[in-house]
């Protein structure tokens, strides 16, 4: 296994076609077409797009929850295995943080259980004392200080932000080098979102974690990542340096997304625009 803080995770020509049977009719949906990109250790790549654009399907293919129809996932240049020990090894390196911290933790188990399990599964040779030490270390890394109290609590005793920190700790537990975070803060209250994103940013900077940050929020995508990929109906239509994509978008769709994002600096502008447009008739409807 490679050292933390090194290596690269690569998607090469990834495609996914879903076949849906509706009586005798079979319809196919191209959820993802020809997606290629690289997440290097110590960097954050943001994948932005609207619902149904294929972002989550990419996440699921990268974490081997879904098998690609075409293309492959490579880690450190080597194709990732689909089963057996090779897959276990891959999962030691690449883990996922899900959107919903209320659904992704088991309400019957303590936080300690949630964190001990992946440590034991991926490192069967460790003794109990070592496992306990790892759990303490994990809680510390996700800034759940006073780790003793958190370890013995159950998910319902924690706030959404704390639960998401536990989910991140669990993703780190196998000793992962890459994390795929699928809308990790969209279900959290606004005032704690940045705290969780800052945690991911700290892990990325200080420990060299590679992060694929999936979001529909352009502002956090820009501030928390090095590179942005914009997806539209299964295709990556624009990519580049985070600032370049946001400040100088090239593709029409990126421009449309940016135009639609709320921007307090445009205070009152929409009202004035609508007022001016009211004389010429109603604006064209979208959606």
């Amino acid at each position, binding site marked *: 296994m490679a050292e933390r803080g090194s290596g690269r995770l690569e998607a090469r020509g990834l495609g996914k076609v879903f076949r849906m049977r509706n009586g005798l009719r079979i319809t196919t949906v191209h959820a993802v077409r020809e997606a290629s990109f690289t997440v290097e250790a110590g960097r954050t790549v943001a994948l932005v797009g*609207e*619902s149904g654009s294929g972002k989550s399907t990419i996440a699921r293919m990268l974490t081997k929850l879904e098998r690609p129809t075409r293309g492959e996932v490579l880690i450190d240049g080597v194709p990732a295995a689909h089963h057996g020990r090779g897959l276990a090894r891959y999962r030691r390196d690449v883990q996922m943080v899900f959107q919903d911290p209320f659904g992704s933790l088991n309400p019957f188990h303590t936080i300690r259980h949630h964190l001990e399990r992946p440590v034991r599964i991926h490192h069967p040779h460790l003794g109990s004392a070592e496992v306990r030490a790892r759990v303490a270390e994990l809680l510390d890394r996700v*800034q759940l*200080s006073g780790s003793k109290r958190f370890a013995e609590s159950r998910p319902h005793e924690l*706030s*959404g*932000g*704390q639960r*998401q*920190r536990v989910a991140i700790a669990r993703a780190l537990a196998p000793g992962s080098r890459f994390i795929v975070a699928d809308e990790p803060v969209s279900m*959290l*209250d*606004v*005032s*704690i*979102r*940045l*705290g*969780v994103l*800052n*945690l991911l*940013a*700290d892990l990325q900077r200080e420990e060299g974690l590679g992060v694929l940050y999936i979001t*529909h929020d*352009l*502002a*956090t995508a*820009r*501030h*928390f990542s090095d590179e942005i990929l914009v997806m539209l109906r299964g295709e990556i239509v624009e990519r580049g340096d*985070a*600032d370049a994509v*946001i*400040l100088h978008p090239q593709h029409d769709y990126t421009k*449309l*997304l*940016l*135009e*639609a*994002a*709320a*921007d*307090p*600096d*445009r*205070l*009152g*502008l*929409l*009202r004035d625009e*609508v*007022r001016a*447009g*009211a004389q010429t008739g*109603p*604006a*064209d*409807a*979208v*959606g």
Partner: protein
Amino acid sequence: MSDSRDAVLSASGVSISYQTQNPVHAVRDVSLTLHRGELLGLAGESGCGKTTLAYGLNRLLKAPALMTSGEIVFHDRHDGDIDVVGLHGDSLRIFRWDKVSMVFQGSMNALNPVLTVRAQLHDVFTTHRPAMGRTERERRSRELLGMVGVDPDRISSFPHQLSGGMRQRVMIAMALALDPQVMIMDEPTTALDVVVQRGIIREIMGLRERLGFAVVFITHDLPLLIEISDRIAIMRDGRIVEYDDAENIYRRPQHEYTRELLASFPSLRGVRGDFIRSGTRRKGARNG
């Protein structure tokens, strides 16, 4: 926005609590004045009492929620002042939807899945305008759909045949049906994609311009509120901690919580990453 403009809805000292074993004081001593044609933004995080307050303004509270004190007065365009708290029975039924309508959170659940859009739009008229004939109902319903940017031929559709954005537009059409003077919108676009959201917001602003109703717009999305509101009330733990023009809230926030909320939304086009190394991290660790 000056206070000299007509008020359409004013609330003073409103408190609402959930009368459970340990009563929860969801709204505490809230006073607001909504002016005619104004867009008032109500911002706050989950559990701050914003939805409870909206239900209180519209008299939609159900036990165990109870308004324990306060006054709500509706200043009708035609009939003078109405004491909203004192309404009951028929007078309440006439008031609701006719004077103050509501767009509920989550159009998925607010529309009846087994009835067509037609049945649900007609229902508003059969209930509130019993004298209206069928042809007229159909004409008005189609006209309403057109107004919110939905093809009137979709009137025969069931809710599941419409996209999320279209369903939300139907909800708005329904809220517009009786030409209300106030529309309360509870997170009307939160579940929608940004591009669709923008289209609907534009629609709401345009209709308000043409029809002159006032809007109470509830959301946690403060940047959006700053962009579209005339005034904004920031709620926390059932209280309004700050209440001012959108511009003052944005440029000169007075309350610490307002500043904290503003700081939670990184600026899209501002200096990159300036807050990442700021104190937010420690604060985040404490809160979350």
